[in-house]
Each structure stands twice: as structure tokens, then as C-alpha cells.
């Protein structure tokens, strides 16, 4: 075979476009998803959040599909094609330097996300995420709304539950220590309340518990766990100073 200009140009284009017809045109013609059971349309705020997510490259570290082999805390159900119906753009991602976010909605309170966006190490000391403290409070709110919308209807259900219980917990806290303890106990089933703690509260165990607390809890709940209003970035926001101005804190 001799390579002539005509063969090169016409042949090259024919083979290439034949491939396009298999890899692009055929899927376009046959992939016809219906919305899945958890699917719901995006609100304006969620759409805005996705826009911020896309433009700032969140997808380079966070994927948006759960695979059959995933065990992560957010892995509730295996992704279906219909989960993505009509979302535009929806970026699946190819890398995980952070958790998959496709089913993250409702797993944390809004305040947690706001604190996490302003200074990721505040809520997650090992996190590699950049601080997004330069975003306006409106942008952080939209981003939070987007993450809270992930898993569609299931996430809405989780958000409803979360709000219900946090409201009761705050009320109980405000009623004073005795009422608070009574409320906490009332949430534990009767047979369990009578059971002794098999984990002996000796000095070593307490030390271990203290370390876990200091690593994962202290920033929001205070040194002894008696803080009602969240401290740090969310608190600053609650006081109306704006999340953007809350300075990221270094990990202790």
C-alpha cells in the first residue's frame, strides 16, 4: 500500500469518523435515562453551588459516583445513570483526594460545611482541601446547599431528621444540665441504660478518648464539650461578621 495524499486525508477522516460514530454518536442515540428514584430537580441555589463547584475545580479531588466496591462513609447506594438526569454540567471526577460527594447530603449540619469550607482543618485535621475563606458568605451558602442536595430525595430526608434532632438537643441543653442529661438518657433504650459500660473508664482509656475528642470534636464543641453555640467560623457567621472574614485557624 502506498500512502497518497488522498488516502491520507480521506482515509484518515473516514476511520476517525467511524470511531466517532461508535464512541459518540451511538451512545448519544441510545443512552436515554429516566430520572432515578432519588432524583429531583436542582433549585436555583443548588445550581449556583454546582456552578461554583465546577468553576473552582472541586471535581479534581471529589468524585460523584459510588462504585460497587466503595465502603466510604458516604457510600449508601451504587450510582445509577438516572441519578444524573438533566444535570448540566455534572462532573463525575477521576480522583479521590477527598471523599466522594455524590451522597454526602444531610450527613453533616450546614454549620459543619461552612466551617469546613472556611478552614477544612477545623473540622477535619487531616484534610488536604484548600481554604475557601475568600468566597463570599453567599457563595459558601450556595456551595453548602449543593453538597447538602447530593443524593436528592434521600438527602432531603436526612436533612429533615437532622434538623428535628438538633432542635430538640439545643432545647434540652438550654433547659440546664439536669434536664439535658434526662433528655439524653431518654434517647437511650431502657435495657441499655441499665447495662454496665464494658469499656473500663481507667486513665488509659480516658486518655485515648481525650485524644480522639481533641482530634475530631474540640473545634466545635469546646474543650469540655459544654459549648452550645459553635465556635470559630460558623459562630462568626452567626454573629453576622461574615464567614469570609473569619480567619482560618491552624491546627493545634
Amino acid at each position, binding site marked *: 500500500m502506498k500512502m497518497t495524499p488522498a488516502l491520507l486525508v480521506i482515509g484518515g477522516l473516514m476511520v*476517525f469518523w467511524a470511531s466517532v460514530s461508535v464512541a459518540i454518536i451511538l*451512545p448519544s442515540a441510545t443512552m436515554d*435515562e429516566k430520572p432515578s428514584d432519588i432524583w429531583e430537580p436542582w433549585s436555583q441555589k443548588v445550581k449556583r453551588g454546582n456552578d461554583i463547584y465546577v468553576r473552582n475545580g472541586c471535581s479534581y479531588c471529589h468524585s460523584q459516583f459510588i462504585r460497587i466496591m466503595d465502603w466510604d462513609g458516604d457510600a449508601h447506594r451504587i450510582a445509577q445513570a438516572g441519578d444524573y438526569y438533566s444535570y448540566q454540567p455534572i462532573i463525575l471526577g477521576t480522583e479521590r483526594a477527598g*471523599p466522594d460527594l455524590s451522597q454526602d447530603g444531610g450527613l453533616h449540619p450546614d454549620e459543619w460545611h461552612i466551617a469546613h469550607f472556611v478552614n477544612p482543618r477545623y473540622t477535619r485535621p487531616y484534610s*488536604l482541601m484548600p481554604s475557601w475563606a475568600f468566597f463570599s458568605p453567599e457563595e459558601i451558602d450556595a456551595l453548602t446547599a449543593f453538597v447538602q442536595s447530593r443524593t436528592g430525595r434521600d438527602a432531603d430526608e436526612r436533612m429533615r431528621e437532622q434538623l428535628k434532632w438538633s432542635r430538640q438537643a439545643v432545647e434540652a441543653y438550654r433547659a440546664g444540665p439536669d434536664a439535658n442529661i434526662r433528655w439524653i438518657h431518654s434517647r437511650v433504650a431502657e435495657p441499655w441504660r441499665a447495662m454496665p459500660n464494658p469499656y473500663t473508664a481507667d486513665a488509659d482509656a480516658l486518655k485515648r478518648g481525650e485524644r480522639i475528642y481533641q482530634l475530631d470534636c474540640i473545634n466545635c464543641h469546646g474543650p469540655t464539650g459544654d459549648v452550645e453555640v459553635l465556635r470559630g467560623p460558623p459562630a462568626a457567621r452567626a454573629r453576622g461578621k461574615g464567614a469570609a472574614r473569619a480567619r482560618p485557624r491552624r491546627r493545634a
Partner: protein
Amino acid sequence: MLAFTKKTNSASRAWLVAGAFWFAVGTTYGMFSAIHLMAPDLFGATPGLVFGRTRPIHVNTVIFGFASSVLWGCTLYAVPALLRTRLWSERTGWLSMFFWNATVLSGPITFSMGYSQGREYAEYIWIFDCSLVVSLLLMILNLVMTIVNRREKLLYVTVWYAMGTALWMAGVYPIGNVMWQVPSGALPGLLDSVFLWFYGHNLVGLLLTPLATGVAYFVVPRVTGTPLYSHTLSLLGFWGLVLLYSHIGGHHILQAPIPNWLKTVSIVDSMGMIIPVFIVLFNLWMTARGRFGSLWNDIGARWILTGLIWYIFTCTQGPLQSLPILQKITHFSNWTIGHAHIAVLGFSGFIAIGGLWYVLPLVTGRQLYSRKLASLQYGLALLGITGFFVVLTIAGLLQGTAWYHGQIVYEVLPYITPYMISRAMLGVLIVMSAYIGLYNVLMTIWKGRPLMDGTNGRTHR
């Protein structure tokens, strides 16, 4: 006006200088990204330096700015040389260089301000997508007219790859960037990912690979002074590439809910890629048989030889990686990042730099300013990329195995810290190599001694 844009080989030279410049910029942004993964609070909350914005600048600048620019520069010299003619229009070459680089320049500017389409490798905003397509159309015109005006009847394999790249990319780029959807540049739903990864993989498959292969086919026989081993094999390699490579994008989203038949096609054709890749390698190997010393001694051909060795690694690892049994561990982890680096820097980047050192004296009429610096650059880049491959592969296996056995992503982060630190340190070597290369290019143009004889630049060592 602008008489310098009419000088013979001036377009090629412009592409080469632009490529050397973007190598420095692109790796610098890679360095920012690497530092971020090591010490995420170092830059504070600086909008232009957050990972989500530096990474696309790094990736797009090294693909479009560095590797493809340098390879286009070499190609624009090689094609007329092989056709015993001149480039049809130097001005058109300059114009396509201008439009291409306008797109590349838009990366650091728009991404750092948060204007990006966000789809991996397809981030350039719409107007700059248009600019890149204009550049490709001008390139097609220039190549076609150069072929029409040729004085050598036979079309050598480098010419096929050059022509093919321009024709294919003019299709791949608008499709992959979904350019008819303004401004999102994306389709609704899952189908978008099919378009995106058709495009993403073809950037390597139908842009970097054919250009790099073409440059290797150009330089290797000229340096060894031997004829090409087999015309038939070069034909098989060429047609095999466009037939198989264009189908395999699906392996990037193999674990996502795309249609099963599409997954099957992408895996089968990924494995099939071994055939054209090894045909090309075998053909070049047999061409250079017994004369590897001459490849090693020519500073340009040395980079190309090394690039071809990385090609073996990349294109053995690539097909295997498409297999679900391997991907269940490696996907989403740093393993893939290691693979991407040996593909873009190890294979096409090394061949681009080799082509640069080989072609630069020919298009400037000056001897290489410093062979020692080019040699140092080689050592730094080789050490850097080899280290990258090792470190990122280990980190990836660690992450993948931990995840597979139930550890969550967050818990595994502290375990990869040492690898992220080593990667950043190795990155310093690559960044140094980029700046040394840029210095050497500029000094060759300003201070290089004139080439005395017409020995195709082979005496510049």
C-alpha cells in the same frame, strides 16, 4: 510589516520558543499543586493558588502549551524538510501559533480567577475553544498546501502523523468541548462524561501520541543514518492508532453507570492498543538496531530514545489499567497520576524536548548554546519523572488497597503524606529542568555560534 514572520522556519522556531516557555510555566503551576498536597495551608486562602485552580492551569499548560507546542514546532520543520519544499506559508504558521497560544495563555488568567468550564482537560472557556479550533484549521490548511506543493513524491510517515493529528483534533476538540453548548460546554446528564472522556483520552491518543511518534520517526533514522526498517509496519502502526485509540475513552469512567457495551468496547480497544504501539516501537528499534550509541551521543536523540522507553512503560501500563480487575484497586488513586505523568512528560514530553534540541539548531542556524546544560536538564528530568512514577504508584497502591478493604478516603490521607512530600521534592527537579531548558533555548537564539556546515545540525555536540 512584521517581516520576520516570513522568514523560513520562523514559525517552527516560534512554536518551539513558546513550548519551552510554557514548560516552565506549566511545571511551576504543577509545583504549586504539589506543594498544596503536601502543605495545604502554606499559601493560605489565596484565590489564584488554591489547588482547584492551579491544577487545571498545570494540566492544560503542559499538554497544550508545552508538549503539543514543541511537537508542532518540530513538525513544522520536519514536514517541509521531508517533502523537499518550504512550509506553504510561514505567516499561517505564525497565525496558528498565535491562536493556539492565546488559548494556552487564557488558562493561567481565567482559571486563576475562577472562570473555567471545569471538565477535565476541557476547561478553556468557549471563546478560547474557538481560538484553538481556528489554530487547527489554519494548521490543516498549511499542511495540506505544503503537501500539495511538495517536490518529493513519497509521503514519509512523519507527514501522515502530522496531517492526521490536525484533521482528527479538528473533530475531537469541538466534540469533546461540546462547543455548541455555550457557556457550559457540557451536555446534560451522564452522556456528558462519555463525550468528555472520548475527548480526554484522545488528547493523548490523537494529539500527543501521533505528533511525538512522528517526531521520533523523523529524528531516529536521521541520527542513526539508517533507512526506516519497514514501511508496512509504519502503515500498520498509523492506521492501528487512529482505529483503536479513538474508542478507548470509556475506560476512564469504567466504574460509572455508562452502558456496558461501551465499557466493553473501551477495554477491548485499550488492550488492542498494545498492537500499534509495539509495532511503532519495534519499527524504530529495528531501524536503530546496532546504532543505539549514536542515539545516545546526540543530545536530542537521547531524549527521544528515553521517551520511547517511557512509551513502552506507558502503553503497557495503560492497557492493563483498563482491566476492571486492576482498576478496582488503582482507580481514583495516585497510581493514575503517576501514569499520566509518564505519558505526558515521560513519553511525549521527552520526545518533544528531544525534538527541540534536534530541530532548534536547524531552524535558528545556530549551534546549541550549551550541550552540558541540555545534558544536565536530561538528568534532572529523568530523575524527576522516574521518581514520580515510583512514588505515585506506591501511593496509589496504598490508597487503593486501603479503600478496597474498607478504609475511608479521609483516613488514608495521613498515610500518603511521605509520598506527597517526595513528589514535591522530585517536582523541584522537573521545574529546574524546565527553566534550564528555557534558558538554553533563549541563549541558543541570542548567543549560539552559527552552524558552520550543512550537516543537518548533527555536529552540534
